[in-house]
């Protein structure tokens, strides 16, 4: 049983010059679902998110959001629709304050919405409130990841695209990040999670896709994939 599709990618192709990074990729993310995309280094996971966000052109196929074709829509228009990406490697704006990072996260929203969401986000991430006047660049890695997610939430996402939020974090911090992700899902936000940490991703996902060399090779529920022999061998190190 798949919920009404919110994001629908059909036969998507992406190229970097002559290099084909995505080949005939089709997948859907239902409204309210948490869908994971796992795959090895260089499989094309980030490229897929870039294409969905509109910062990487599609060379074939189509992307539909809430039933509307957005394949050629400008990136900033997609943000206004609620397609929000938390990019790989956090990428906070280091020289700017924590609060500036957050308010800029709400760039696509009205002043009143930003003020409102900021209160909610500070309630969710008290440490960011404490350090709101400090430069984002001096936060610890874990705090920067929290800031990156919080910045995404400031845009009031309908779908949150998370690119390897666990990367470079200690197990305790990874748990903390995933708690926030689960809380966001509980509030009804649709989440598309990209992870190299397949075990973790499959444990929290309703459904998942496995990407290999630019192609989707498997898709099933998270639990089913965790027991899939091929996945166990290639991605879970079992």
């Amino acid at each position, binding site marked *: 049983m798949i919920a009404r599709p919110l994001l629908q990618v059909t036969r998507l192709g992406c190229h970097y010059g002559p290099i084909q990074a995505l080949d005939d990729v089709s997948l859907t993310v239902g409204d309210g679902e948490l869908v994971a995309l796992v795959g090895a280094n260089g499989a094309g996971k980030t490229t897929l998110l870039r294409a969905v*966000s*509109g*910062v990487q052109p599609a060379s074939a196929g189509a992307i539909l959001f809430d039933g509307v074709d957005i394949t050629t829509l*400008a*990136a*900033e228009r997609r*943000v*206004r629709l609620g397609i*929000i*990406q938390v*990019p790989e490697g956090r*990428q906070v*704006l*280091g*020289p*700017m304050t924590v609060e*500036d990072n957050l*308010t*800029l*996260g709400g*760039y*696509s929203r009205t002043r009143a919405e930003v003020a409102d969401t900021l209160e909610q986000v500070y309630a969710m991430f008290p440490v960011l409130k404490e350090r709101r006047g400090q430069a984002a660049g001096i936060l610890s890695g874990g705090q920067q990841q929290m800031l990156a997610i919080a*910045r995404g939430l400031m*845009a009031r996402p309908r779908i949150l695209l998370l690119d390897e939020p666990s990367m470079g974090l200690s197990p305790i911090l990874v748990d903390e990040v995933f708690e926030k992700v689960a809380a966001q899902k509980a509030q009804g936000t649709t989440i598309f999670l990209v992870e190299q940490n397949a075990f973790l991703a499959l444990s929290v996902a309703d459904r998942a896709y496995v990407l290999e060399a630019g192609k989707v090779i498997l898709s099933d529920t998270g639990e089913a994939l965790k027991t899939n022999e091929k996945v166990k061998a290639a991605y879970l190190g079992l």
Partner: protein
Amino acid sequence: MAGKPLFLQWLLISVLAEFLQFLFSGVTIGATYALVGLGFAIIYNASHVINFAQGEFVMISGMSTVSLLAVGMPLPVALLLAVGITVVVGVALEKFAVEPARNASVVTLIIITIGASIFLRGAAEVIWGRDFHSVPAFSGSEPIIIGGAALLPQSLWVIGATVVVIIALRWFFGRTRTGKAMLATSYNPLVARLMGINTRFILSLSFGLAAMLGALAGILIAPISLTYPSVGVMLGLKGFCAAILGGLGNPMGAILGGLIVGVSEAMTAGYISSAYKDAVAFVIILVVLVMIPNGLFGVKGTERV
């Protein structure tokens, strides 16, 4: 025997007066370099492009003022319109020359701006001829005597306007949503786009803003130095010098850089020979590029993402 100390006193006063005189002219011209340098910094931040047409903005506003005065417009109206015309040219430059090549390398974009500057200078010669023109000072030309040195009222306009511009820019980048979006784009264009910032608009805006700063320099300095179609060449280079001295992309550095270039130039002209005046900027460019590539106030070199 009272003659000797009196003579020494007179000597000291005239040496001081002379120094003050050079300082006044250095700070005045330095302020215009600072404005031009700020334009370089703002466009560099938005796109990593060094806009070598920056000096032409100075020229276009000066020459436009001359024409607008010639058709009988009052000075304040002519000045405002001249700045407006220059901003339109700056935005058009971005739209029709830079934007279409948006995906080309930075070097290509820089070459495009060099081509654009040659084109603008040529167009100016066609429209205005090669003659030198003067523009009346904003508020009289009776010098104010300070410590034996003469300060032109126009110098006060130049310095005062530059201070106002600096304060306005600090407010714009520090307090406004659009200003912060420009900063975000300069720190990380990808993240800026993912936050919903229209980075193409930011690029247009940076050209408009840089053109406005160049235009201000142009109308402020025109009453002191004459204006002519190739006036932007030297001013552009000195502004570039100010920008790299301050660390490319560091606006406050560009301002200090401008003052340093202006004052060193005036001191060289005064104490050594005005023949070496223009050489100062080139020596500074060489020294900075070879010995301190990040400028005096630059942090680390920023890579393009």
